[in-house]
């Protein structure tokens, strides 16, 4: 497939704050190809979150074009955007954002409840498959509060891939996690990427960005730098270098 999954042209976003305007994005041209693993980097205020919100169909640009999987998104209304998020996108957030007092498998099922295609049995099956993919099938009936941070993030990843999205968008997914758990999460992303899922990741950590194919650096609402990662890190290898400190001490 030569057509890019994500394609933005002259993407501009202006927030009106009373009398003066904030130019969050000043013309972003970015294509993300199918099966790519892209890390978007930049300081806070560089516009990377705004960009992710637009790419994630949570927000619409002030001007410019945005094609998601060949569909023009920029002019869609709220309901059309919601439908697109449901069918084509998966989200992973820094704060995990699982529903409280809800079991892991119910959390993973959530996107399917809004798509109306499957029976409850099929839903449960798909959710279990997704949990399996992140290695948490044995925690399916645990409540989100009973899971560790890393486990919660893996449930969130399972939720993001349960509806077979064309792209998974991860906004600082390792921001709330320790080093080892971060690498574990990146290992999952890399595995999913190998299975053919496109991943777009926002991070400000250099070493996390090194797990991606390509790094895009934002600055002041523009793309400052775009580099292919030369010496890409493989999470499985990195994991073996990090000692399992906590486990050793406790055992």
């Amino acid at each position, binding site marked *: 497939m030569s057509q890019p999954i994500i394609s933005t042209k002259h993407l501009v976003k202006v927030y009106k704050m009373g009398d003066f305007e904030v130019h969050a994005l000043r013309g972003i041209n970015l294509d993300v190809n199918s099966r790519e693993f892209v890390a978007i980097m930049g300081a806070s205020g560089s516009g990377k979150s705004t960009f992710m*919100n637009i790419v*994630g169909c*949570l*927000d619409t640009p002030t001007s410019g074009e945005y094609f998601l999987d060949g569909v023009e998104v920029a002019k869609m209304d*709220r*309901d059309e955007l*919601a*439908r697109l*998020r*449901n*069918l084509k996108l998966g*989200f992973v*957030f820094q704060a995990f*954002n*699982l*529903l*409280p*007092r*809800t079991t892991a498998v*119910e959390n993973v099922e*959530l*996107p399917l*409840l*809004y*798509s*109306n295609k499957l029976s*409850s049995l099929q839903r449960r099956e798909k959710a279990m498959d997704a949990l399996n993919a992140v290695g948490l099938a044995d925690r399916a009936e645990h409540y989100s509060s009973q899971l560790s941070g890393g486990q919660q993030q893996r449930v969130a990843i399972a*939720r993001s891939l349960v*509806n077979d999205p064309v792209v998974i968008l991860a906004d600082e997914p390792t921001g709330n996690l320790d080093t080892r758990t971060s690498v574990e999460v990146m290992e999952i992303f890399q595995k999913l990427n190998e299975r053919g899922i496109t991943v777009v990741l926002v991070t400000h950590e250099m070493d996390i960005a090194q797990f991606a194919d390509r790094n895009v650096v934002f600055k002041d609402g523009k793309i400052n730098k775009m580099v292919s990662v030369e010496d890409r890190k493989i999470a499985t290898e990195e994991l073996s270098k990090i000692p399992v400190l906590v486990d050793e001490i406790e055992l």
Partner: protein
Amino acid sequence: MNIINIIKISYRSLGRNKLRSFLTMLGIIIGVAAVIAMLAIGEGASNAVKQQIAGLGTNMLIVFPFASTQGGVHYQAGTTSRLKESDVTAIREQCPAVEYVTPITRVVTQIIAGTENWRTNVFGAYPNYEKIRNWPVSSGSYFTDQDERDAAKVCLVGQTVATNLFGEGSVPLGETIQIRNLPFKIVGVLAPKGQNSNGDDQDDIVIAPFSTVQKKLQGTIYAGAIFASAISSAAVPAAGEEITQLLRDRHQLRPWDPNDFTVRTQTEIASTADATTKTMTLLLASIAGISLIVGGIGIMNIMLVSVTERTREIGIRMAVGARGGDVLTQFLIEALTLSFAGGLMGIVIGVLTSEFVSNLQKWPIIISPESIALAFTFAAIIGIFFGWYPARKAANLNPIEALRYE
């Protein structure tokens, strides 16, 4: 949008927050229970009053002699007409809307039994007085038509008279009392009737055959009044018309002469009392209605707080593809479920409370299906009405801000 899924989502959400759900319902539970209990008690009271009025004889008409006084002066002074027993016979024979009719005469006198004496009203009436006043005996029986024809010295005594002459709880059947030195045999004791609307003790009475009182105690050919009963409460006005027309003819009044008698009915008393109890029921119902509205506002408060508290949850749902309509529906279903469940519990508690009050106060209650339907419908409407605003608010949240909400 799959409504079944949304319903599932709503129920899961309610189930996960049992305390919050229960507190939200509490307002509706109390409101509905209050409406049902108050309406049941109100209608019960209203019914009790109606029965008391029916006890007076709602179909009853009373004919008094003399025209209504005009400026305090009797019309046609010196030619005042009196009601005679022949008038009664004519009414019985010629007025189809009249079922029973009796002349009434009254003597206030001292009565003696052994060493006791008592001052009371001695009424003379036909035995059909029982039917007209709807006033049975508690023991013994009424005197008969034969007694009436024979002017027999028999009588019925009221509870107050029996108590004062023969002691508390006595049943003086077959005893003899002296009325103006004539011995009367007691053939029956009247059922207690209590006070009338003027506060007079209706049980302070002796009733004897009309002929006996008229001839042996009074020595007059006139009746003090005529009591009649219409064939139904609807026929009371017709009966009044017929009696008026007949008596005018019999008393040979010219068209421009005013009546020399007055016909009164119980209907207006009944309707006044009815209006009073209706007002009371309405008052109780409005108090209950206010509590229902307060309950509704409670639902809205909790739903609003819940929207704020669940901002992030709504953000998550929107991020994974919930549309505004889905969120709106979810919150509306939650509100509706709470008000329906609250309504049902309210009905149960309302009915139990009514029964409890009824047992405690010996107050008759009537739980009408209408009041249950009314309370329940009201609860549902309140659920929609007060659920709409918070639901709307949730649906219009911006997903980005909602996700960022702490």
